[in-house]
Structures are given as structure tokens and as C-alpha cells.
């Protein structure tokens, strides 16, 4: 069954790596719903957050292909239940329409929005949340001359993760710990041998 998966990739910070990772998806004609790159908790280590809609079997294979890249340290995949995630959205609307027709205050309360800029000619709101939440405010603003809208890629934190600091030390070691040298997906023996 296809569903949304969030892939978290820890990498070295190198020119060209974004392309190397992106073509793993495009080669298989898989659409990337959202892609974010950012620094991670570990110094010098970059973190990609990629959202796709696929079956688990495909996602697992994609992660192995990603981990195979020389500059990739680790790739994890998670369902939405296993992560905390947010997206950020910005909305630009004419100030006069807002003040006349909808109460700014109501928007702020109902959608947890924040006014980032209020000028005579326009106001910019910001919301952070899941897709449904950021979309709710678009729908509310659509009738009121929404001038511009933009939404960021997803950022996510894996609930069960202890961060990458300790892992990185092991990567730097010449002889890695078992857990690192092996692929996390196969660590569960019961799964491997149940066929």
C-alpha cells in the first residue's frame, strides 16, 4: 500500500550531492513531494528530509540506494506516526480587505497564525503545522484577494531517534560498530527470516 514516508538522510556537505540523491528518485519516475536540506545536530553533517508517497518495499530499496552513495552516512525512513513534523507557510493579503472583511484577530486565533509584517498595503501571515492546517488558512483567505502564498518543505524529527552525535563518532572510527555497518532494516532477524 502506498503511503507518505519521510526519509531522513545524514550526509557530508558536498557540492553535487543533492543531484546524486535527487536522481535516485527521478530515475525511477518517483515524484518527490517535498525536499529540505539543512544542517544537523552534528557539526559538518547535513540532513536531507524527503517526503514521498510509495510502498514500504520501494522506500526500503530507495534508502539502500541512497546509503550506497559515497557521501551518505545513513538513511532512515518513517511513517507519519513515527515522526514529529512541521511545514511553514506565508500568506500575503491586502491589509484593507482583511481589516474590512475578515477580522484579523479571528484568523490569528482560529489558525494559530502570526502576523509577520503589517503594512498599509499588505499584511503577511505565517502558520506552522501540518499540511491540513496550512491549507485551512489558504481556504479561509482565498475569497479575500490572497496575493501570494508559499509553503516550505517538511522538516521532521524522528521520535525514537537519539540524534547523530554518537553515531558519527562510530562512523569516524576505522572499525564501525555492528549497528552502523549493517543496514538498520535488516537488524530485525525475525523479519528477515519470516518469508
Amino acid at each position, binding site marked *: 500500500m502506498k503511503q507518505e514516508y519521510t526519509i531522513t538522510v545524514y*550526509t*557530508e556537505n558536498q*557540492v*553535487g550531492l543533492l*543531484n*546524486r540523491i535527487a*536522481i535516485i528518485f527521478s*530515475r525511477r519516475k518517483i515524484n518527490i513531494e517535498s525536499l529540505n536540506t539543512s544542517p544537523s545536530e552534528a557539526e559538518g553533517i547535513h540532513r536531507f528530509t524527503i517526503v514521498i508517497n510509495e510502498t514500504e518495499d520501494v522506500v*526500503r*530499496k530507495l534508502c*539502500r*540506494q541512497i*546509503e*550506497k552513495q*559515497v*557521501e*551518505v*552516512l545513513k538513511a532512515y525512513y518513517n511513517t507519519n506516526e513515527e515522526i514529529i513534523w512541521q511545514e511553514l507557510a506565508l500568506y500575503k493579503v491586502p491589509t484593507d480587505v482583511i481589516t474590512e472583511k475578515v477580522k484579523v484577530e479571528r484568523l490569528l486565533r482560529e489558525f494559530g497564525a502570526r502576523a509577520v509584517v503589517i503594512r498599509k498595503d499588505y499584511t503577511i501571515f505565517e502558520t506552522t503545522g501540518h499540511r491540513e492546517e496550512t491549507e485551512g488558512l489558504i481556504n479561509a483567505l482565498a475569497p479575500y484577494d490572497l496575493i501570494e502564498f508559499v509553503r516550505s518543505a517538511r522538516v521532521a524529527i524522528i521520535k525514537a531517534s537519539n540524534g547523530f552525535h554518537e553515531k*558519527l563518532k562510530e*562512523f*569516524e572510527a*576505522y572499525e*564501525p560498530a*555492528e549497528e*552502523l*555497518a*549493517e*543496514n538498520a532494516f*535488516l537488524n530485525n*532477524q525475525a523479519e*528477515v*527470516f519470516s*518469508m
Partner: protein
Amino acid sequence: METLELKEQTITAPATQSISGSKAVLEAFIAEGVDTIFGYPGGAIMPIYDALYDYHDQLKHVLVRHEQGGIHAGQGYARSSGKVGVVFATSGPGATNLVTGLADAMIDSTPLVCVTGQVFAHLLGTDAFQEVDVVNITTPVTKWNYQITDANEIPHILAKAFFIAKSGRPGPVLIDISKNAQLQTFEYKGYQKCEHIRSYRPKPIIRKSYIEKAAELINSAQKPFILFGQGIILGRAENEFKNFIEKTGIPAAWTLLGLSALPTDHPQNVGMLGMHGNYGPNVLTNECDVLIAIGMRFDDRVTGRLDKYAKQAKVIHLDIDPAEIDKNVKTTVPVWGDCKETLPLLTELVTAKKHTEWLNKFNEYKQKELDVVIHNELNPTTEQMTMGEVIKILNQNTNGDAIIVTDVGQHQMVASRYAKFNQSKSNITSGGAGTMGFALPAAIGAKFGAPSRTVVAIIGDGGVQMTIQELGTIMQTEINVKILILNNEFLGMVRQWQQLFHDKRYSFVDIQSPNYVMVANAYGIAAQKVTSRNQLADAITTMLQHEGSYLLEVMVGKENNVFPMVPQGCSVSEIRLS
């Protein structure tokens, strides 16, 4: 010509340790034990060629006739020697001419380091003369690639390049060096080989528990079957493999690239897998109870229809590349790791056995294939010669000691089916990519990689015309390769498919050839054409005994087909004998 603007480079004051980027490239090669470079010069790589002028007694450079020939020669060199092949090309068209070879080396896991020249760093992105974004073009077809714009990076990037190319599952690496970096002098602190990259784990750690589980399955199996691929050759694990199969008594079949890892006449060698493989191995894949795949990747030409492939069997997969596990065939027990290390561990745990009855089953199928296909192919009663009888006579002359380099098509399948091999690294062919034009340049490279061995390139009349310009390389280097053209006056393999699957509508497969004897002679290469059977044996002996290169063209039946065949979309057990 290209811009000669030099103003942007940093010129450090001359000191004892100051060397140019170009020189640093060649110093890296020497430290890595490189002895031969295949290449072609041009504007953006001229500084490196200038430096090479002073290194000619330490580094041999083979001037090819086309960069595609250069990279295929590098592949042939790597495959016959087990070392990293090294290739030079200039920027722009020089670099794009490498792409086919990179794709070929990528899918066949061949270790290469290709160095391309690039325009001056300040011109990048300006559509400068002969500027091509080679790093992005080659990303999908390289294991790793990198662009250097500062000479200071050269020593450690080249060290990384060699380490990545040859470690783990080998593959091609491309390093693009801008002209300013080649010219730049910098403080050279010597060359240090790379042995560890924190984000790169060439070998997965071996897990004892998987080995134990695999041994248990093997020990309880009634009809176990081994499939082996190039992983054995790349891992230099031929002896470990032989010990394993001899102790377990399990029949073993090879993929196209696994050929020559086990001597052809080994009693447990039951033949070739896949589309034009042998009858028994294909049919019995769907009867075995435990399938042991070693250093192979379940290519679709091997598996046929996947949902009808070995569904009854438990699968043990030994591979160094974790991404291969479960990629195409679901594995019961994954044995990750270098098979040079995993095979002995497994051999220790398995009980010694003889699967006589099961092995006999392979022999029964073999008999049937002999009667229906092989006998006629090797001893034809037709007036026209068959490819098979040419290979048979070749075997009688080489005794299985030659390196056989094949191109792509019917002759490739026939040669793989019938050629004899006694030693490893002797079968060189373009497997995963199926690149026509591979054989002639690869044979040149193979000879440079193994100068003491006889190298025979077996090529179709189509494929030879794709890279025939490399006869010039043979002429100039005076290298000794034997070129055997099996001429059926057709693009044979495509014609076979048109006959079998497109109602014999022969659409553009009728290909004319030049007078190959005259062409060869024009390049100073001795040659002969054979049109009848009674000349064949003498001609092959003449070719092999000739001092220096020799081209032999053999006219064979125009519309002969290669059988057995697993038609595309069919299961391996639906293999056809006619």
C-alpha cells in the same frame, strides 16, 4: 584555440616542494602503481599531457583513436589485470565520449579512474569553448565524481578516487580538473593513500548468525543450486569458491560475467544461466529447494519473468553490496560481505556431501541440449559454417588458456556458451550494458593488462564497425591482439528477434561490411578471410601463431539462430530449444 588566459591562477614562489597540479596527478598515479594510461589529448588537458612528456619512462600512455575506445581499453585492462584502469580525456566532446564506457563500467562494476580536463574555473558556467557540465552528465554513471578547481585538492582527491574505484563493489570514478588547477603550482606535501572515508563503508560487517543460518539451510537441502557471478572474480575468491562447492558437492552455474571464475570443465560446472544459457540450469532453477547466489545481482536476462522465478526455493544471497539484497529476488538469508571472507566461514560450517542424483539431473538435461542444439551447432552438416564450430576449433588451439573478449550479439552468446576457460579473468565482455563496439578496444586494453596472455577478440560484423578506428591504436602500439570477425552479414541478434517475434520483418538489419582484409592491411595488420570449412582450422592456427596482431574474418550462416532461448517475458523454465 582555447583561451590562454592565465591571470587567475595563483603562482606560489618556487620552492623545493612546489609542483604543478598536473605533476601532482602523475605523482598520484605512480604512487597508486599505475603503469598504463589510455587517453586522447585536447586543449583543456594539455597541461597534464605536457607534464606526461617528462614521465614517459614511468607511465605508458596509449593514444587511442576515440575516447570511447580509450575507456573500453581501460575496462579491458582492469578486467584482465584486476587493477584500476586509468583514462584521460579533454573537456567537452572528449569527456562526453566517455559516457558510454562509464555506463558500461558502472553496471559491470569495473574499477576505473577517468581524469577529464575542464575549462578554467573562472569560465565555468559561461558556455566557454568546449565547456560541458561533465560532473552532472556523469553522475548517474559513476560510483563517485568530483570537480577540482584548486591544485591543493589534487593529491587527496585522487587518493579518494582510487580508493573508491577499487574498494567494496568496484566502479568508475571521474575526476574533472579545471585547467587553472592543472597549471597552478602549490606546496606539495607528498601523496598519502586513502584507506578510510567516514561516510563510506565498502564492506558490510559479516554476521556470524547469518552464516550459521545459511549453513543450516544448505545442510538440510536436498536439491541445492549455486549461481555465481563476477563477485567471485572481483573479490579474488576463486579458490575459496572452489573449496566451497567441492565440499558441498552442489552444482554451480554462472552468469555471463561469472564465466571463467570456475574452469569450464569442472565436474560441478553445469553451465550458463539466462536468456541463452544452458537448458538444465534454467529449468532446474525452478526445481531446486535452496538457491545460493554468490556475487551476482539477478539481472532480468538471468531471471526471465520474476514472478515465476525460483518461487519454490529458499534463497541465500552472498553479496558485498547491501543494495543488491532483495532488490529483485526476495532473500531468505542475506550473507552480506566480501565473499573472500564469507565463503571460507560458510565452508567451515557445511557438511561434506555429494549430490550425485541431483547433479545427474543436470546431466540429463545436458544430454537433451546436446542432442537437439549443441551437436548440430558444433558439427554442422550444412554447407555454411556456424559460429559454434569456429569456437570449437578456437578451443582446440587455445586449450582454454586465452583471454576471450566478446562484443555484443549472437557471437557473444555463442562464444560464451562454447568457449573453454581454465583460468579466471579470461572472459571480458560487456554484460550489463551490452555495448556494441566494446570488444576491439577492450581487447587492446586486456593485452596491456596481461601482456603474457593470448587475447582473442570475437566480434560481429556490426559491432566491429562501431569502433573499427581502434585498428589505428593497434598499428601504432604494435600490440598483439587476434581479431576474429564472425560475419553473418546481418545485425544477427536483432535479426533473430525479428524472425522469432516480428514475423520475419527484417527491418534495417541487413548490414554491409567493407573489405576487412584490405582495411586491416591498410593499418599494417595481417588478415585473412575464410569462406569455407576446409580453410577454417588452418586459418585459426595461422591467426594464433602469427607474430603480432591478426584479423580473421569468417563467413558464417546468415540466418542461424542462438538457442536455447528464454523469450522475453517468459519464465526460465519455459526455455526453448528451437
